[in-house]
């Protein structure tokens, strides 16, 4: 290498110089991605954090007010209600999505007739745009025209329409149900992919070792699936925690703020309410929750010892 450089030194242009320096060239190739990241991720995030420390309103430059926004949020009962709602929504929906998704994945992993057809059907809720499915749910949960109420009345199980979105408890359950419906395909299909990486011979070996169906699930399937469960559920929790569209279409946070999530509250205060600073502060307040979810998954559920490669 050194000889070649010395030999061609006389003819070397500035362009060749750049080509020779691997670091310079490397940085050059990194540039487009870096610009993209800075412009669309770092800058908005930084701006959001900065706005949280100001009293900016729509149409008026704000001034730095320190932690004032956060102090106000600390004593704001609606904010704390939104925090509670978000946690309830995330925990409830994630547990249901995991349980139902795993169950569905196990079913789809069996030898079924029309297997690919069922797999395609399961993916449907995931492909439909959120807003469209939210509007469908809006009708399903409608106070007068709900198909669920209609069916239950026709079956003679109830005698009046259920007030799905008008009652605080019902509204919370309804939005969780809609989110679960939408989120199951992601969990089910990802876990199905995980299930298919478990060699059939492991199940056969366990069968010969005397394991029952439940024992095979408990000692083989679940531990082998745990790395994928960790990744899938981290994503699922992050998506659910930051959910916005579904709530905004179905309830707009009502009734009595019972379904207001941090994301919808942040939007409501910032855009319709015009208080950009306060909205930004609510959004920033989501970061610790999201970070702790990521850290939990990173440290608690990261690669197990048995997954690590050779190296005696």
């Amino acid at each position, binding site marked *: 290498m050194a000889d070649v450089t010395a030999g061609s030194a006389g003819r070397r242009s500035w362009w060749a110089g750049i080509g020779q320096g691997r670091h310079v060239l490397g940085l050059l190739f990194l540039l487009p991605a870096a610009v993209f990241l800075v412009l669309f991720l770092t800058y908005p995030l930084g701006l959001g954090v900065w706005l949280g420390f100001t009293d900016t309103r729509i149409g008026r430059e704000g001034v730095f007010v320190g932690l004032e926004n956060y102090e106000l949020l600390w004593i704001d009962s609606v904010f704390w209600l939104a925090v509670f709602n978000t946690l309830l929504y995330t925990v409830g929906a994630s547990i249901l999505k995991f349980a139902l998704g795993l169950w569905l994945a196990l079913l789809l992993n069996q030898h079924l007739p029309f297997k690919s057809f069922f797999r395609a059907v399961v993916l449907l809720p995931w492909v439909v745009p959120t807003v469209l499915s939210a509007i469908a749910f809006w009708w399903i949960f409608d106070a007068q025209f709900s198909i669920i109420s209609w069916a239950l009345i026709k079956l003679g199980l109830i005698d009046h329409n259920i007030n799905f979105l008008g009652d605080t408890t019902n509204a919370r359950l309804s939005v969780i149900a809609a989110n679960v419906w939408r989120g199951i395909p992601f969990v089910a299909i990802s876990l199905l992919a995980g299930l298919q990486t478990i060699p059939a011979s492991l199940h056969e070996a366990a069968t*010969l070792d005397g394991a029952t169906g439940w024992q095979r699930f408990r000692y083989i399937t679940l531990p082998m699936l745990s790395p994928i469960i960790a990744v899938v559920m981290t994503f699922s929790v992050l998506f659910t925690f930051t959910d916005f569209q579904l709530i905004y279409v179905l309830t707009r946070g009502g009734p009595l703020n019972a379904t207001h999530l941090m994301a919808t509250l942040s939007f409501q205060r910032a855009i319709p309410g015009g208080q950009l600073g306060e909205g930004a502060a609510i959004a920033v307040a989501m970061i610790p929750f999201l970070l702790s979810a990521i850290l939990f998954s990173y440290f608690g559920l990261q690669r197990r010892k048995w997954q690590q490669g050779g190296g005696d």
Partner: protein
Amino acid sequence: MATVEIRGVKKAYGTTAVIHGVDVSIRDGEFVVLVGPSGCGKSTLLRMIAGLENITGGAILINERVVNDVPPKERDIAMVFQNYALYPHMTVGANMGFSLKLRSAPKSEIDSRVQRAAGILGLSHLLDRYPRQLSGGQRQRVAMGRAIVRDPQVFLFDEPLSNLDAKLRVQMRTEIKELHQRLKTTTVYVTHDQIEAMTMADKIVVMHDGVVEQIGAPLDLYDRPANQFVAGFIGSPAMNFIKGAVGSDGHAFACDGGASLPLEGMVGARPGQRAVYGLRPEHIRIVEGGAPAQVVVVEPTGSEILAVARLGGEGGQEISCLFRERLSLAPGEIIHIAPQKGMSHLFDEASGARLVD
């Protein structure tokens, strides 16, 4: 300790029959090898003994009890899989003790039995490792350990050595044989490698296209193959098959393309009948007045010389000859060859059945 009896067993996937009625009887403590080319149904037969595949027809008996409808876990058999099927998330010790744990055996018993099996296989220092941290040979041993910890009625091996390199394969072959001599557990071993079959088996079952071609002791199969398939499958390098017809006096075989080879002790072959003359490369000698053959290729390996020659010279049928002596052969040279006495075979050209006694 158990006998295994396979009676008229058939297997079909839908309308595709893969095993067409197989009968094998395995004595207590016997080491039986099922051997055949890929797709002959040997692994399917083994999986049917294990209970991992349904039996379409016939019956399998373990210790004189029909097990057709007995679930695998109640058959008391242990199986070593081709890919070992070790549980990757369990340590070596946990892998070996898993079956005992499922039976809720006390921890002290699990430990002592795992320790004993690990001692037999030289795995004692690896009990806390995970399968990923082991070499291929060690994994193979863990898979065997998992089988012997249970002290089952029957061991099943499904091509256990095919993922190992050649040298390790020879070593593990010896280890498995030693293990069998020590434990004396009835064993059914599946392989496509005829050398494994020859070296390990008490009894070999040669299968081809879902039927049993021949059952017998290794040397019986080598000395008296029942048909052309077995003759070609057993032995390495493979037997030469020379096309031709039985001579008019019945004591010579006229090869197509020239040359004539001696026939002895033939039964059921008419003079003039078309037939295939089988001759193993290692049973060919150079003798004065033998059939002429022109050397084409010479491959010395040190211990022996493999030569390919054309019987009857240019345009004749190619045969391989294996000589123990250091002959100086050159391509183009004419040698005179003859079969070693009593070591030639004759098969029917159409059916492939053995003709000489």
